[in-house]
């Protein structure tokens, strides 16, 4: 329960920064890989909804993209061996798909600096969340 509240708190705190670095996407990825599938879906829904509301273009698109990709990753998770390399590769691919999908759906601009920063900050955020949630820097699968 504490972890769930922590994710929501971090999500809220990171929301204003989401225009520069998409920490929300990293948190969603972390939740998908570490937590229960049903919570991951609900959390992705809330994240998408909050982004839709905080950076309003048209309500619903971010939410659809987030839950669709979450469901896709939940499906793929069974076939992946999550080591650091595959983790960042999976995140990068899903993040790029998300960016491309939103670009197609709502003409959201593709900001290369934002993409690079998000990928760069991926591991520090993952480690930090793992440390706070599970007490270790990296939880073994």
């Amino acid at each position: 329960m504490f972890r769930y509240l922590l994710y929501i708190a971090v999500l809220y705190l990171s929301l204003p920064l989401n225009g520069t670095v998409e920490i929300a996407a990293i948190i969603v990825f972390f939740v998908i890989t570490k937590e229960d599938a049903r919570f991951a879906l609900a959390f992705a829904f809330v994240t998408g909804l909050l982004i839709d509301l905080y950076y309003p273009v048209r309500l619903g698109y971010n939410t659809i993209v987030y839950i669709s990709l979450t469901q896709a990753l939940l499906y793929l998770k069974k076939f992946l061996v999550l080591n650091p390399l595959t983790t960042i590769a999976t995140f990068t691919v899903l993040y790029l798909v998300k960016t491309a999908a939103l670009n197609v759906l709502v003409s959201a601009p593709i900001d290369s600096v934002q993409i690079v920063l998000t990928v760069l900050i991926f591991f520090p955020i993952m480690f930090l969340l793992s440390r706070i949630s599970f007490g270790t820097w990296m939880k073994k699968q």
Partner: protein
Amino acid sequence: MRRQQIILFIFFFIIAATPVFLHENANLSLSRDISSFLLFPFRTTTAFVEYLTISNKRIEKLETLVSQLKLENASLKDQLVVDTTQFELSSYILLKASVIGRDPLNINGYLHIDKGLNDGVFKNQTVLSIDGFVGKIRHVGPVNSIVETIENRGFTVSAIDINTGIHGIIKKRENLMFLYIRHNDTLNEGDSIMTSGMSEIFPKGILIGNVHAIAESEDMFFKDVYVTPATQINRLVSVYIILNGRALPTRD
């Protein structure tokens, strides 16, 4: 488990997709309603930050206003001194005279001016400059005169502290002193000292100088008050003589 997950996904997907198919206005309205609830922490924080920013701006504006008022106040205080001097002078006839010489033994004590008896100058007439009090006519010749200045040792004039209304005597000793100020009288450094008018010679309201130091003396009754003269005697090139003052027309 797997089935539940699929149902949950479909459920969320339908909820997320519904607003997309709504009319733009309905979508906007729904967005506004949900955000008022879900983004409440941000609204509160933003409102608080806005409040702080506005408060800071107001404080800055008020500080600017206070500075302006301080400046204005200082300017008005200066003006008050000038006005008081000018008010007193407005009813007097002034004669301008040039300083043509000084006493080499007492260079600031006596001034030689180029106006004399022929110009209506008499002994004991008050002499002043644009900065304030200078002294009085000591000797009168037909075409020139000698002015005894406030810098001459022993020179006295009755005076008043304009800020506190305390009366005393200005006297030149080693320094210019404001005498007969009791230990319990409250004077402040910077106070303006003017002629009090309690004299047969000097009219009231002429600026003499400002208090620059107050010291407790060994005297049982009075303290030492040091005054900086308003007029710098050693820089004077011209002075004004009050022709219709209190001094009676007498020959030297």
